[in-house]
């Protein structure tokens, strides 16, 4: 036998694999550390911040950053640091919900089109092309303006403009695998078509999907902030990065830069983190990376 010698050590588990991926790539480690920070501030931020983000204090309006107010105060004396941290929860919630929605919807549509093909495929593709033919941000504006100015509608709008990206990716990944040997084998072992699709083909599309998800989380945050910036969706005085940048922009000319810069910086950090996260996530969900 020329088979490779059998190692008696157990193959690495999921946790070992996670640690391995993080150690192999310092950028991934950094991305995960930043991601953890963002999640922690979303979960515990509102309980930990030094000031009430909505509490106005006219005496201390427009204070520059100091030890008492790290990011300074705004035009009605609210603490910018507290507002930036508290806003994390809302921005993250909007983007995660939107991405989850478009992931599920896009996966179902794309997998169906890619597996069965035919007229279903043609109709779905033309539909997605139609969505993509719009300038996406303008489409989102239109949807929010038409449906009403609420947080749910921001989520739906963001989800709809992202669906085509997922659907196309899944369709391509499913399509190249629908006649693969392991798919035929799965049919022989008594799996119905839907089971084959859901349990055998779709999981193999996950690695590229993870890259898409993480990039998309960044876009979704930008999109939500952008809608708020132009006055759609979240309304003041709710702390939200986009609104804070919009409100702060008025004061930049008069020298109070901290109002817009800090929320903008946090927005940038969040998008940057999600963009970095993609490769690491792909390595984690791809079993072939397990050695």
């Amino acid at each position: 036998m020329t088979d490779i010698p059998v190692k008696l050590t157990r193959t690495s588990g999921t946790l070992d694999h996670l640690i391995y991926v993080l150690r192999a790539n310092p950028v991934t480690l950094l991305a995960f550390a930043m991601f953890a920070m963002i999640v922690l501030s979303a979960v515990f931020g509102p309980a930990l911040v030094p000031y009430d983000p909505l509490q106005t204090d006219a005496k201390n309006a427009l204070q520059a950053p100091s030890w008492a107010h790290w990011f300074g105060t705004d035009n009605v004396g609210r603490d910018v640091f507290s507002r930036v941290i508290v806003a994390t929860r809302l921005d993250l919630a909007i983007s995660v919900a939107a991405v989850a929605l478009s992931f599920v919807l896009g996966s179902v549509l794309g997998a169906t089109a890619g597996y069965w093909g035919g007229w279903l495929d043609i109709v779905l593709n033309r539909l997605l092309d139609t969505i993509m033919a719009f300038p996406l941000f303008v489409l989102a504006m239109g949807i929010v303006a038409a449906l009403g100015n609420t947080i749910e509608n921001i989520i739906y709008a963001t989800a709809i403009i992202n669906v085509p990206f997922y659907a196309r990716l899944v369709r391509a990944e499913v399509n190249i695998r629908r006649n693969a040997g392991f798919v035929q084998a799965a049919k022989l072992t008594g799996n119905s078509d839907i089971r084959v699709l859901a349990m055998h083909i779709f999981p193999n599309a996950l690695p590229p999907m993870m890259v898409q998800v993480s990039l998309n989380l960044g876009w979704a945050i930008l999109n939500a902030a952008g809608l708020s910036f132009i006055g759609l969706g979240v309304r003041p005085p709710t702390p939200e990065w986009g609104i804070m940048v919009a409100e702060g922009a008025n004061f930049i000319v008069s020298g109070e830069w901290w109002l817009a810069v800090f929320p903008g910086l946090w927005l940038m950090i969040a998008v940057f983190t999600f963009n970095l996260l993609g490769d690491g996530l792909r390595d984690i969900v791809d079993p072939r990376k397990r050695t």
Partner: protein
Amino acid sequence: MLSVKNLAVSFQTRRGTVEAVRGISFDLAKGEILGIVGESGSGKSVTSYALMRILDAGGRIKAGEATYSGIDLRRVAERDMGDIRGREISMIFQNPRAALNPIRKVGHQIEDVLRRHARATRHDARAKAIKALEDVRINDAEARYDAYPFELSGGMCQRVVCAIALACDPRLLIADEPTTGLDITTQQAVMELVRDLIRARNMSSILITHDLGLAAQYCDRIMVMKDGLIVEQGDPARIFSDPQHSYTRKLVDATPRMGEGIRSLLPPEERKAELPHQVHDRPLLEVSNLTKTFKGMAGPVHAVRGISFSIRQGQSVGLVGESGCGKSTTSEILVRLMDATSGDIIFDGQDIAGIPAQGFARNPRRAEIQMVFQDATDSLNPRHTARQAIGEPLRRLGALRAAPLAARIEELATLVGLPLPLLDRFPHQLSGGQKARVGIARAVALEPKFLILDEPTAALDVSIQAVVLNLLVDLRAKLGMTYLFVSHDLHVVALLCDHVIVMRAGEIVEQGPVTRVMTDPQNAYTKALLAAAPKPPARRQLA
């Protein structure tokens, strides 16, 4: 002419340095054809890449010397190396389709090399390219000059690659598995062409192959490589009649030949008595007038044109033919992954041709007809461990769960000779032979009555092929299964089967008992198939 001394090549990988070639030395004389034979991972291809200095990223020549006509191939500047490649040393690659640029006409691709080495000017390039095509015996070379690679068959593409390699009259030709993946009659034609051209031009050549029989037929001298070392070299007849190294002996044994039993493929100490399998008179499967027509871009394509045959219970039937003959379509229809256009399939007294393939997964007959796929790698889900793969039919069709499931999986792994610790590995962590075992274990998990084997050993090394074929023989006797063995190789079929069906262009051209077809073929095509197979020299006699 070429002299290699202590050549060592290593690759930097994520898991440290891999020593692909570990110090080999050989000389090649003018006019000599040297065969380098070895199984996957033996370093035979890496050796040739090192000589051409086209190693993949991360690979480098660590030590040793390679001198070609006084030129030090290891130290010569990259610019000079560009002159040497193609004009002095050229190469034929394994997959001709991948070696040709898919969007350029083949004639232009020949001109490229002629122009690069200043063998042709803009004015006479076309004529010279056509001449090069004629040299490789391509009919109607004028017309073929304007063909794109996808318009040509695999054998034609390999001829074009030969034409490119030989266009500038190199003095050394390296052929890396030039016929792997080609049909056996095409293999013969290409190999004879290459040999004739080399002889006519008095060139030297290195033929790299995994097939000892092929090397023996076309080479003056054979070098056997294993794990980056040369384990033995010598005259082909001597290698076969008196192999010195244990690995060479194993390779010689594993090379299928006519008139010998399946156990003779194994090393002598592993040859157990062959368990007899019982053939009943009752037919298990009766196929009549089966046809399959695909809708093609240019009208209907008749893949299967009304074939009829029957398989008795316990019988092993070989279905032989070259690519495109309809054998794979037939097996997919029989295993109910595809619907036939017309015809009957009576399986165990029931007509299953009428049951649509779409819903056959839930048919009670599903467990009785199973299949072992051609490519073990492709047929295993990359996200499932071996345990999950083998357990899949048991869970879905056998309704086994928890402890009985685990016990049955381990029983099956033992049956196919897969070490139990490997069960928790993913396919990419298993070797080719181990993946084949997982695929077989999955197919026999439910003890099907009828098992279709679709070229189960085509992607395997010969020594592993020997083990897998013997495993199939043992399983047949233990489980009483009926086999339909689909293959392009008559010799392999003869080892395993009782009855053989030869297909060509969707029709059965000959069928009969295996001994009769092998010794006294009636049809011209069967005769051609038999004649095209490489004939290894006589083997050493066992005392």
